[in-house]
């Protein structure tokens, strides 16, 4: 079924090995890199947003307790 007789023949690609494997290699690297970068970007985005939401919440809580103390001193 396989067209090749040996693995070295497969690697040589009839003296076109550099061109064939240069195409395959760059394609494989870029197609692997894109989802990796996307996953990393998504992780850092979610961490940033969570930090932001937590900060906003504690700001709100701080505001509320400030108001309460002001009200009690009046």
């Amino acid at each position, binding site marked *: 079924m396989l067209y090749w007789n040996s693995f070295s023949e497969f690697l040589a690609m009839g003296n*076109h090995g550099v061109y064939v494997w240069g195409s395959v290699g760059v394609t494989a690297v870029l197609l692997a890199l894109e989802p990796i970068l996307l996953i990393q970007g998504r992780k850092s985005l*979610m961490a940033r947003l969570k930090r932001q939401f937590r900060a906003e919440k504690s700001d709100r809580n701080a505001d509320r307790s400030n108001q309460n103390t002001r009200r009690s001193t009046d």
Partner: protein
Amino acid sequence: MNNRLINWFKYASPQSFYPIAGKMIPWFWALAAVFGAAGLYIGFGVAPTDAQQGEGYRIIFLHVPASWMSMFIYLVMAFWAALGLAYNTRLSGMMASALAPTGALFAFLSLWTGALWGKPMWGAWWVWDARLTSELILLFLYIGFIALQSAIDDPRRADKAGAILALVGVVNVPIIYFSVKWWNTLHQGSSVSLTKSPSMAMTMLWGMLLCALAFWMYSIAVALMRGRSIMLERERHTEWVRTLLTGNDSGKE
């Protein structure tokens, strides 16, 4: 009729599309892996050699699908952009932005694999012929779209400006596709055509179609992933993103 229209618009909101996209992504990855493995096995393992081009012809199993994807993604991107201009839906602009980098990637791969094919076959990495030049313009259109969008701070205005660029650039896609017919070019005519029976052996055709399907599934998976991040980023001031990321403890009183 009216009901159906409303249903479609329901899924056009980022809030309802976000979880659906998340469920679909693993399936598209699985399909991409299956089609990719089968296509590479046939293309690089089983397919016979080409009488004229020798083994170097095997580059076309990546080159042709990458070129198809670069054109097709542009059409889909322009379609989303047009939808965004017409209906002013938020999701359209997000999906157009999500597709652009992947389209640029495939345009680059098309040029790269083409150069590596051209060197042994034509004796030149690059020639300024109609097919190659119009594909290079496609890459520049993608880069221009991305640059224009990232230069405008307001995402809604960035969507509109990008949409107009994308729509004007659509004219380039038929130019790429028909360039081998319209002009006398060094690039060979299409190996697979919608109107004629293919001018290649069945195993080669299968290898190419399977690789194309794999790239197709890959593109959908990656575009959905990027789209989901864009949705979170742009909708960060809305309640659904806050609830999603902070759980039930939504920060509301």
